Structure formats: C-alpha cells, structure tokens
C-alpha cells in the first residue's frame, strides 16, 4: 500500500530522489512497523525524535507494532528540533 513519507530538517537528504516539499509517496507492506520504515530509509533511530502519523505523535515504545499505518497515511519524522 502507499503512504506519504515526510522527512524534515537534517533528515531531508534521506528521502528518495524526486521528493517534493520534503514528501515522498512510498510503497510499504501492510504489516510494516514504523521502525521498519525508519530503518529502511536509514534514519538513525535516535534521530527519529518526533514521529507523527497524520500529525499525531507516536512514542518510541509504540514503533514496533505491525500494521500501525493504513493506505494514504502520512508519516512525518523530525530529529530533535525546537524554536519559539
């Protein structure tokens, strides 16, 4: 199934070629866990700080559950960032 992967800030360069506005459409297995995807795109796990599915935070202890994503979901990942 297809989902949208968004990688931001210092993780931007890890997106597949052709990504637009930090987003890329990717094909994943229905049973994929978030950590599978994080590893597949070589995002160091310690830098997958802010992990959001459709804008909702997923804490690191919940990232090994299979089937966390459904078709059309948006998975967005940031390293530790802040501002204000």
């Amino acid at each position, binding site marked *: 199934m297809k989902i949208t992967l*968004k990688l*931001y*800030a*210092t993780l*931007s360069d890890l997106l597949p070629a052709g990504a637009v*506005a*930090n987003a890329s459409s990717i094909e994943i297995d229905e049973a994929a866990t978030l950590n599978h995807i994080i590893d597949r795109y070589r995002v160091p796990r310690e*830098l997958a*700080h*802010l992990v*959001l599915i*459709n*804008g*909702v*935070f997923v*804490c690191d202890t919940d990232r090994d559950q299979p089937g966390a994503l459904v078709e059309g979901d*948006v998975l*967005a990942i*940031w*390293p*530790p*960032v*802040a*501002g*204000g």
Partner: protein
Amino acid sequence: MAWTRKLLRVNLTNGTVAEEGLNMGWANDYLGQRGLATRYLVDEIDPQCDPLGPDNKLIMATGPLTGTNASTAGRYSVICKSPLTGAVACSNSGGFIGAEMKMAGWDMVIFEGKAASPVYLHIVDGVAKLEPADDLWGKSVWEADKALHAKFQDPQTRIALVGRSAEQGCLYAAVVNDLHRAAGRSGVGTVMASKNLKAVAIRGTQGVGNIEDPKKFMETVKAGKAVLAENAVTGQGLPTYGTQVLMNVINEVGALPTRNMREVQFEGASKVSGEAMHEPRKSDGKKNLTTNGACFSCTIACGRISTIDRTHFSVKDKPEYWINSGGLEYEAAWALGPDTGVDDMDALTYANFLCNEDGMDPISFGSTVAAAMELYEIGAITDSHTGGMELKFGSAEALCWAAEKVAKGEGFGKDLGLGSKKLCEKYGHPELSMTVKGQEFPAYDPRGMQGMGLAYATSNRGACHLRGYTAASEILGIPEKTDPLHTEGKPGLVKAFQDATAAVDSSGLCVFTTFAWTLDDIAPQVDAACEGDWSPDRMLEVGERIWNMERDFNMKAGIAASEDTLPKRLLSESANSGPAKDRVCDLDKMLPEYYAARGWSSDGSITSETRQKFNLPG
C-alpha cells in the same frame, strides 16, 4: 556580585543624568533584568498612568550574567507600561547592546519624563550625555544607526533605536538594537518615541568584573556550554534551521493558525519553512539563508541572515534591499505568512526587513494585517479605506504594501498601526481581533495545543509564547512529551514554565538555552557569579514572585481577571482539519486549577497569603 550595583537615571524633562546605587535588597528578591526592572517600575509609576504620557517610565535593564562569558549572556530587556495592552510590558532582546551596557558599568538605565525635542543618550563607560537628535527624527532605524556610527567613528558602539513607525504612534513599535535584534513586543518602542528619545548609544570598555567566585564561574560556564553543544537541539537543530524549523512541525500537528486564525493548517507552509530557506532559488541559484548568526557570547547561534531574490517585485527597483540582513524567525514568518495566507518567501523576507528597518513587531504587524484582510473580505474595510489596495488573504503585494505604509505611518498604515484590537473595534468587528489583553497571538493555535491556550490567556503581557512555552512539552517533548490535545496536567505545566521563564529572563541568559538546560544548569552559573546562594529552588521562587508582581501591577492598572480569556473564535469555533479537528480550546477546564496552583482565589485575585508569601510591594 556580577551586578555593577549602579543604575543611571535619565530625566528627559530636565535633561539630567544621575548615577544611583542599585537596590540590592530588591536584587536579592528579583535577581535582575525583567524581575528587578519591573520592581522599580512598580515602585515608581502609577499603574493607571497614560502609557504614552510623561508619567510612564522606560527601563533598559541587564541581568547579573549579561556581559559575562556564559553562553547567550548578552540579553537585556526593555520594561514599561504598554500602550498596546495597558499591562506591564517587558521585551527581551539579544544582540550586543545589553553586554555593552554592562561593560560600560551600568545594570540598568531608567528614563523618566519627556524631552521637549528629540534627543539621544550617549554613554561611554561612566559618562552619559543627552544629545540633540532633531536630525535623526524622521529617519529609519537603519538610517539613524548609520548616521550615529558615522558620527562616533567607532564600530564597537552599540545602538538601540526607534524607527519611523514608533514616531508615528504605531502601537506595536519595537526598540531595535544592532540593526536587526529587537525588544519587539508590546509597543516598548512606542513608549520610547513618546518620550522623544530616538536612540541609546553605548560604548563600554570595562569588562564585567565583580564575579563572586571566578574559578567556580568558569567551571560552571564550561559545563553549561558542553551541555548546549552536545544537545541535538541547541548543538545542531537551532544553528542549522533556526526557529523556522517549526513551520512544518506546527503545520503537521494542526496548530498553525491560518488566515487570522480561521484555520489551523496552511497549504503553503512548506514554501515558507526553515527547510525552504535552504533551497536554492530558481532565479539566481542562491538560498534565502546566507548564514546563521549569534548574539553576544552565544554558542547556539540560532539567528538567520538572509537575502531577497533581486528579481522579486518587492525589491527589483530597490538595490538598498539587496543586502544580507536579519531573516525570518518562526514567529515572524508565521505572522507574515500563514496568518495572512501569503506563501511567498521573498515577500515575507522583505516585510521582515521593513519590520527591522522601521521597528515594528512582526508578530503584531502580521496579525493586524491578517485581521484587516478578514475585515476586507467581509466588506468592513473597502478599497476606499486602503486607497485602492486589494487587501486580500494571500496577496504578497498587499503584505509588502502594508509593511511600507506602517513603517512610515502613511495613509491606511496609521490604522494598521493601531494593532488588531483597536483596528477591529474601529471597523465594527471586535470579535475578529485575535488578541489577549490587546496583544496579538503568536504562532500556535490553542485548539491544537491546549496548554498554550492557557499560557496565552494568563500571560501578563497579553498573548505571548515567551511567557510559558508549553509547546516545548506538548509538541517537542522538552523536558518531556505531553499530549497537546489533553487539558489534564496543563495548569501545573503552564505555571512551571511561566515561573522558570521569569527567572531565566531575569538572569541575562537567553530562554532558548532551556531547550537543553534546566534550572539545574542555570542556577550554578548564577550562584557562582552572584553573592548569596542561588539554588534552582530559589530561582523558581524568584520567578513566581515576579509573576505575582506583574499580575498585581496589571490588576491595579485595571485589567480584570475576566480578561484571562481567549477570543471567541478559539473557544467556540472548532478546528477544521488535522488532529485537533472539531476541537476548541477548553480553557474553562484549566483556568480554575491554574488559579488554585497559583494560590489565587477562584476569581483570579491574589490572596493576602500569596501576597505575604512573596512579600509583594504595596
């Protein structure tokens, strides 16, 4: 010690300057900068005075660590009663002038009265003189800064100035220092201009001595710098992307106020984001971001230095703007961009340059333009008011035009200079003003971040993110992650952030250190520099005392607890997309618990026990 124990009192009515000893009893209770200067203000002005009359005072104040080699120790604050809100105003700025004031031997400068004609204050170490500034009046910040630097022939002189917007009475005018750093919020620049004070120029050559335990201080400073360097946010994130890294984050979580806070997500967010500032432009292959920059003694360096595309409509005939200058920070980018619906990075950068050049708070400016755009959309403001400019959401031309008009106080720019509240009242729709206590919101929608809603509603200077930045916890997980859509636990979280921030703002350090530091990192540096014992608990107590003192001033100024609220839009019109879809801000679920945590009565007034506990003045 670390304090110089000296303040400079400048009576603008009489044209006199006088040295005074610092009230060290107050320094022990309020530390410095925000806390200590507010203590002086509370003592010296009638809370009900006209903010733009001669009875208001303007205080420029450093903290005990300002000017030392602690990381970020260049901060100073400008304190007065605000013309925008009628509440206490305290605006903090970095750059270099705070450190320069300290190195000239002064903890603070208090301005009182009003000069008969324009003046500037020139301080060289222990000597301070008021000089005529008739030739500077009517000049922008950048022009006047250039003229003064040409006169002094000393690039190390640091200057804080007001621009034409302040002279023209724009109610959210800033005091700009070092060309593009500003004590930005609440109209402190308007108060400075109302006193006919155009600029303060300072040269200090004395260094900062008086450190209580120099060896321990060096050790604690070194340890603090190591923590900042090793932390992913302060060591990498902020220097690389600046605060603007938040644009995409806050949009993704559905808390990016859009088009005068009607919506919570902006389709053009990525185009005006920190990431986009790193993208090469089509026209010249250059990036918007030239480099990052640092304030005095800062090892984080979050500042943005940017250029505008020379072919962009805003500057193509204006080579004076083909420069590297202060670029977009997140709050400014949000107000100029998503809140007005404009997704043109160059237009935002141009408007930001003008805010620096003529001293407008970009948050209040952008939010006021957003309100005007909604008023235009419903027909309350028409082309006859604007002189033909179509003030439509999304119009980059309208944004740039508005910035030019407010900068000079021309035409409709006078109305835009009133701020969102008075503008919306004037045009018959007060409900469209997105303000608390008359001050415009920053860049987080309380429907998608419940804690920020409470922080805005209870902020002592009106809507503000820098009085209790619970976004750190609710979104970024600092110090620990809380759910942005939950109200549980938020009253305690807001109070903790408010008190800690008040302490940091009184120390001379930058609040951005707190993305890595806690008071356990800060207190040892203060303790080594200052006489007495400064534990984290004492810092928190000082912060809570400051918070109560500011609240007390506001109540005496006539700002009732009923103003601890949010615009109706945020309390009753639910978010239309994202994780907060169908949510409003549930302020009523948080406010009673917050009052109780503060030791206030259920009607929000400060109880006599709390007054006694903190030994509040008067």
